[in-house]
């Protein structure tokens, strides 16, 4: 049964400019949304695995997703986090290069790649939108690269918090962090002990405070920005 999640169709329900996803009101949303389906995924459920044929494109409708690769020494490197409105699963080739899992119970909108190709062929606005999305992903990968080049844990975590604030922070500076400490560690290339210790130190320094489950308040953005300079 192919029908779109009504939430995606309602303009009012659209999230603000998403990190990875198309801008509200863009042609991409409205042409393609009816051609996909919304699928629920339980916490930690696999959405696709590395090396699987890349037959679909995905967008997070609700919840959060992580893409990752397991390295030969057993460590997990998280490539990116996807939040509501973010498109993911875009591949140059025909196989997925990373695996993707739901971080929490999530709803993911799924559309066949072949359908997207067909629409892009006849509609140049959609084609342009896809090009922009790919360029945005590239930008984010470049930022991630620069983040990993930093030596200090404080700097990596500051960069991470500011990135998350840009994507899903509210006016008061509260950020939702849907992922566990281990996920943050594996995204930033740090040990969980370092991540946890740095969070404690930032709380002591009043740079951040930890609210209820998964909400962080950025109290001193200037300090974070200095670390990210």
């Amino acid at each position, binding site marked *: 049964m192919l029908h779109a999640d009504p939430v995606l169709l309602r303009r009012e329900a659209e999230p603000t400019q998403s990190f990875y996803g198309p801008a509200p009101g863009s042609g991409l949303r409205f042409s393609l949304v009816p051609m996909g389906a919304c699928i629920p995924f339980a916490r930690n459920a696999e959405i696709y695995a590395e090396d699987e044929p890349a037959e679909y494109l995905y967008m997070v409708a609700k919840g959060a997703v992580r893409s990752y690769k397991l390295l030969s020494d057993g460590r997990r490197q998280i490539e990116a986090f996807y939040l509501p409105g973010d498109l993911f699963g875009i591949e140059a080739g025909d196989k997925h290069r990373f695996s993707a899992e739901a971080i929490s119970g999530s709803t993911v909108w799924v559309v066949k790649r072949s359908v997207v190709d067909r629409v892009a062929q006849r509609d140049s606005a959609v084609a342009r939108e896809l090009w922009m999305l790919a360029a945005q992903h590239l930008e984010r990968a470049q930022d991630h690269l620069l983040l990993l080049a930093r030596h200090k844990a404080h700097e990596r975590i500051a960069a991470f918090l500011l990135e998350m604030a840009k994507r899903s922070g509210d006016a008061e500076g509260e950020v939702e962090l849907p992922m566990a400490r281990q996920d943050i560690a594996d995204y930033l290339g740090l040990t*969980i002990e370092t*991540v946890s210790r740095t969070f404690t130190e930032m709380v*002591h320094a009043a740079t951040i405070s930890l609210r209820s*489950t998964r909400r962080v308040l950025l109290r001193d953005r200037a300090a974070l920005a200095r670390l990210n300079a």
Partner: protein
Amino acid sequence: MLAERSVPRYTSYPTAPHFSPSIDAAAYGRWLAELPADASLSIYLHVPYCVALCNYCGCQTKAVRSREPVEAYADLLSEEFRLVGAATGARTVHRIHWGGGTPSILGPRALLFLADELSRSFDLTGVREHAIELDPRYVTSELADALVRMGVNRASLGIQDLSPHVQEAIGRIQPFDVVADAVAQLRKAGITRLNFDLMYGLPRQSVGDAIRSATLAASLEPARLAVFGYAHVPWLKPHQRLIASDSLPGAAERLTQFEQIRRALTGAGYRPVGLDHFALVDDELTAAAAATRLRRNFQGYTTDQSDALLGFGASAIGLLPQGYVQNAHDAAGYGRKIGMGQFATSRGLRLSHEDRVRGRIIERLMCDFAVDLDAIEDEFDQEPGGFAAEIGALAGFAGFVEINGRRVTITPQGRPFARLVAAEFDAYLPKGRARHSCAV
């Protein structure tokens, strides 16, 4: 001799060696969800770090030289508060207890941070007792002030023995002055309910040492004292291999040491409570004992009547209406689980009806030194007239146990052997392969 038999201390029933990995994070999640919103909670927080390990240490802890693991642990504990808080509707906390290790190794800032974080997930406004275990060598006025700001109103100090040669043998040098100073700091800050822990059966400890330590400790007028026998279990706690077993008092001398400590403390005005606690006349523990309201948990004797005990931190044990749960023993294992956003439950036990009945009998024997089997059977809707085999076996305790119909009473001479009497009702003991420490 009776004292040679190895039986548990019955801080739980069934005892911890019988916990199994079949109770996991998923079970803990379900049990938490089933707690009613008005359940009264007791919270235990374990901090598995010390500045240095004492040779006799039987606790779940390790020595650390830097702040880093401790700071990391503080963040993970706060994560666990959020995880557990989100999984249950229960909110109301009546008691908090920090144990370890040395909980105060967190330092004033991290302690205040954690107390604040705990208050975000739970309602701490009705907390009546907030206790913390402290090492007298590391009590400063800054720490004492932070404790008061956190709401701590009871502190437990490890004294063990005050003789220099014993302290040298156990790797814990803390002269009486250091203890007295710590007590003064705490009282000055406003923490007046103080507990002291004393030990007997320590290496090179004589009966005279034990009496002297008890008398000196009592002179500082703590509200309560707990007296524990050293448990030499180097196969479980490799660190104890630093203690030569031939430097340890034998079973008969241990018994004498305990008796003399008891005499010294009662002489100083303390009332015995249960097997190994002593309290001032006006302390609530004394009142609870007299009214048969005393309970028993992993901290020993308590007045805690909470519906559920939630344990946080590595190795922490919780007790919910459905049964026991225990977190991963080591900080690394604990951190891995909490870091993944999962409960750190590694083992536990679902209580059967029979477990509850026997557990209650054992608890009353350990607390009141008497139990009315009819009353217990009534309380649990059990068929009357059970436990014939156990009552028969108690005939072997002539002089230590009196049986009047369905009421079992441990005589004053039998009290040091209460654990052995309780063990008769332990359905797990003959089958269990768990080794425990000496019965006295």
